[in-house]
């Protein structure tokens, strides 16, 4: 038949079609018959059986929410816990005079008098036999007042429920996160059955990222209801449990205790966190402290912050709007989501790149006259020191933060090699920390520029862009977390670990605990491993050298600090203009940055401090870093 030409035969076609329709109709009759047979079987033959079952359906299954796991800091301080909160509840069916009852409750100060109408409406719209919550957070006094008068209020009761509480409040808002009420949108991503009894779900930070671990498994118990659905008694789940299980009948069991969620141990050191928050007080700023070898985040602070307890207690629309519209943006986790030009803090990284690619040897000196121009160009790239640094080698280039040194060498290194090296150090991509929302920052390259811009003339890479990339300006951005992480890479001499906030979990029921292993990333290997020490030396020179940019802030430390200041321009100063801090609007003032690790020879901590519009790295950011490091080493000596 293949190859032969067939024509459309309309008459045959219609005939076949009708035949098929008839067959389909036959099937329909058959299947409908099956359905009717089944229905007759259920509704006529087994009618008595199912009626009995339906009448016996007086035992309803009620979910019991699990207790949420606690969250600790690395030293065992509780950062998130569950505290009882008292709710005033009414069962409409058992109350004869709803309005009168509400008025008498108002007289006792248990409900607001102007709320009565709203509550009455709420009660009216509710099912008659289900408890309606009249008030969510009863104070001890209110609970006392009610207890004395309880007999006058049949159908009204106060019940204790658990509410999430963050003892350190603002201090942990950006890392631990918070829980909030479950919305119908949440149910689209949650297992409905497991959240049947739960009222809150992790909304941000660790609470969200580790929701599955923290939440636990829902339990069930049986309650006996009357024919109208009213609860008559609650069967003790343990008693039901004690009944001999039927053979192979795991599913036969009619009650199940909830399994509490696992506790989490975080890498945070809450006292260090406190010290960092105090040092940053008053600024829009962020600080991140990591342990270089493990990637443990010891402190992560973003100021200003907010009180996460507002969210777990149900915050009003006005409060939320207030937080959203605050110009200082307290909801923003600057450590994770703030992206800033890294400025001169990038110079030690670039120093490594220069050594790795043999662009300079440590003794090569470059003359700095206070500005730099590309060949055949009159555009002057200025040094922060107007009169220039004179002859500078690598050590002085970093210690004095000589811009001309890095303008010159950046051009020699070239943008592609610069890009690849910085990316290898962890910049320009999310570090992969275990909470959501991290931003990637940007390490620019010609390839990136071709992709990022649509207009042809914007896509070209200009030599001048390589020059300013050499001092961490231009397109280049990084988050404080990335800066701390990549500084940690220098501290650990090339060892890299994924930054993490959760270092272990514990099971509250059986007391077992698990330590999570740090996740090692591929090691950064230099052509000449001595380059690490060379760069560490230059960073020590920053804090110890006679002309080091942060020698004043780091005077008299009992430990050696390897540091680097950074001052990042927020706006471009014209060729003929001068930047005068006092004349510049606060929001356009330079960002102040500082990265450091200590002790330089065997680092325990690496950190990054970024102060928005802080003015200068050495004046604003370095003292903050000093305060944090002092706190760490003091605590260690105790």
């Amino acid at each position: 038949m293949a190859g032969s030409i067939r024509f459309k035969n309309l008459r045959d076609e219609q005939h076949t079609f009708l035949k098929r329709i008839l067959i389909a109709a036959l099937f329909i009759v058959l299947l409908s018959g099956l359905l009717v047979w089944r229905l007759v079987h259920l509704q006529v033959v087994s009618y008595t059986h199912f009626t009995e079952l339906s009448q016996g359906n007086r035992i309803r299954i009620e979910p019991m929410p699990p207790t949420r796991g606690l969250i600790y800091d690395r030293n065992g301080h509780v950062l998130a816990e569950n505290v009882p909160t008292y709710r005033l509840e009414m069962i409409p069916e058992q109350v004869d005079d709803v309005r009168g009852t509400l008025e008498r409750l108002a007289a006792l100060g248990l409900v607001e008098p102007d709320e009565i109408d709203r509550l009455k409406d709420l009660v009216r719209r509710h099912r008659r036999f289900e408890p309606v919550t009249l008030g969510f957070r009863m104070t001890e006094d209110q609970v006392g007042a009610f207890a004395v008068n309880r007999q006058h209020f049949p159908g009204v009761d106060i019940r204790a429920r658990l509410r999430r509480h963050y003892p350190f409040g603002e201090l942990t808002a950006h890392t631990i996160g918070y829980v909030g009420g479950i919305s119908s949108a949440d149910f689209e991503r949650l297992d409905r059955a497991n959240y049947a009894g739960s009222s809150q779900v992790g909304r941000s930070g660790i609470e969200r990222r580790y929701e599955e671990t923290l939440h636990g498994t829902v339990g069930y118990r049986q309650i006996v209801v009357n024919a109208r659905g009213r609860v008559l008694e609650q069967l003790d789940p343990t008693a039901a449990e004690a009944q001999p299980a039927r053979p192979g009948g795991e599913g036969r069991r009619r009650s199940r205790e909830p399994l509490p969620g696992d506790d989490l141990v975080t890498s945070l050191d809450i006292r260090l966190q406190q010290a960092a928050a105090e040092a940053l007080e008053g600024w829009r700023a962020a600080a991140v402290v990591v342990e270089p070898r493990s990637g443990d985040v010891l402190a992560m602070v973003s100021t200003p912050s907010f009180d996460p307890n507002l969210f777990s207690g149900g915050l009003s629309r006005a409060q939320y709007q207030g937080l959203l519209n605050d110009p200082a943006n307290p909801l923003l986790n600057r450590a994770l989501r703030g992206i800033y030009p890294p400025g001169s803090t990038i110079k030690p990284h670039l120093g490594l790149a220069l050594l790795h690619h043999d662009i300079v040897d440590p003794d090569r000196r470059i003359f700095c006259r206070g500005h730099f121009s590309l060949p055949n160009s009159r555009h002057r790239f200025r040094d922060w020191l107007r009169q220039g640094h004179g002859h500078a080698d690598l050590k002085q280039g970093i210690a004095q933060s000589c811009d001309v040194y890095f303008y010159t060498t950046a051009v020699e290194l070239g943008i592609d090699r610069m890009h690849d090296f910085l990316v290898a150090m962890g910049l320009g991509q999310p570090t992969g920390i275990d909470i959501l929302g991290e931003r990637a920052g940007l390490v620019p390259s010609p390839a990136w520029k071709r992709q990022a811009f649509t207009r042809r003339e914007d896509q070209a890479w200009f030599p001048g862009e390589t020059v300013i990339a050499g001092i961490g300006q231009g397109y280049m951005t990084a988050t404080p977390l990335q800066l701390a992480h990549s500084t940690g890479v220098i501290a650990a001499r090339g060892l890299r670990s994924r930054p993490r906030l959760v270092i272990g979990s514990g099971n509250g029921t059986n007391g077992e605990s698990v330590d999570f292993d740090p996740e090692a990333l591929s090691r950064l290997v230099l052509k000449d491993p001595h380059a690490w020490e060379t760069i560490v030396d230059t960073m020590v020179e920053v804090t110890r050298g006679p002309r080091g940019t942060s020698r004043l802030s780091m005077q008299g430390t009992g430990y050696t600090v390897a540091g680097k200041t950074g001052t990042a321009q927020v706006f471009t100063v014209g060729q003929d203009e001068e930047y005068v801090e006092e004349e510049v609007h606060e929001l356009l003032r330079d960002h102040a940055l500082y990265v450091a690790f200590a002790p330089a020879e065997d680092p325990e901590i690496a950190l990054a401090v970024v102060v928005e519009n802080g003015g200068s790295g050495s004046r604003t950011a370095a003292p903050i870093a000093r305060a944090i490091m002092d706190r760490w080493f003091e605590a260690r000596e105790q």
Partner: protein
Amino acid sequence: MIFEETQAFETRRPLSAPAHLLRSLHLDAQLLVALIAICAIGLTVLYSAMAESTQALISQSARLGVAFFAMIVLAQVPPKKLRMWAPWVFLAGLGLLIAVLVMGELGKGARRWLDLGIIRFQPSEIMKLAVPMMAAWYLHERPLPPSFGAVFVIALMVFTPALLIAMQPDLGTAVLVACAGSIVLLLAGLKLRYLVATGALLLAAVPLLWHFMLDYQRRRVLTFLNPETDPLGAGYNIIQSKIALGSGGVFGKGWLNGTQAHLEFLPERSTDFIFAVMGEEFGLLGLLALLAIYLFVVGRGLYIAAHAQDTFSRLLAGSISLTFFVYVFVNAGMVCGLLPVVGVPLPLVSFGGTSMVTLLAGFGILMSIHSRRRLLPA
């Protein structure tokens, strides 16, 4: 004056005013009345299932309004136009399906919704009509029964979107889309040996399918095979819906008096399991009445298909009618424990709007086909 043309050989009589209106809107009175009857029954049961909420009633009515509007709009489109559009509608639907997989909104752990700013919709719904349209378009100019090559092409057209939908994952809709497309092939006179071969292939694919199923899908199948294994979890639905149906008896417990539904023993009572609420409150007689109307709608659809005058219209009308029956059977079968629990709503009765629009749009197409058939057989 307009005369009823179909009865040309009889005495011409003038049309009444409503009949005139229906005629000029290309609507089919019998189909329309039956559909409205189903919707009315649906709203009545829904009111009971949704704990006597007027709010729900209003929102469901609003959706019905939109759906009937879609039906009327589709009835105005001549089948010829529809045929010309078929490939484009299909391609657009395919594009949207891919878009939804790439960037769709997550709903219940599945990517089904596409957010277009003002409206959110499930592109998989479009496919319920686009797939049979496409298959019918493809067969329209080709000799029937379809050659092996044609069958192969159509299988591709049907199973590519079905697979994409299954990946969302939305097994219920995937099955319905595959059904709608396959029915076109069957009606076109697909040879018996292909049918047998496909059946054997499907049977062989079961272990493979099992391998790719998600946990919840597997659980549903296992629960279907033995609901008693998990009375608190997935089996609970079936057990409770059987109790609801069975205790309804012949005459039912009466409207608003179903204890299973009102005491909340029956889960999903306003959506997938509304058939059980109906059975509990209106008994066997109520269910038989509803089934009878459904069967009337299917029958009328098949009648329209049989009288359609070109291949495209015929195949499409047949597919739409039979798919409607599949809908009813799968839902009712699931509720009374004949079939596993797949998320297929009871057409025009279950709460929720997306499938309603597609369903009535399909009937709009049927009406368009019927009202535009030329007289005089060849």
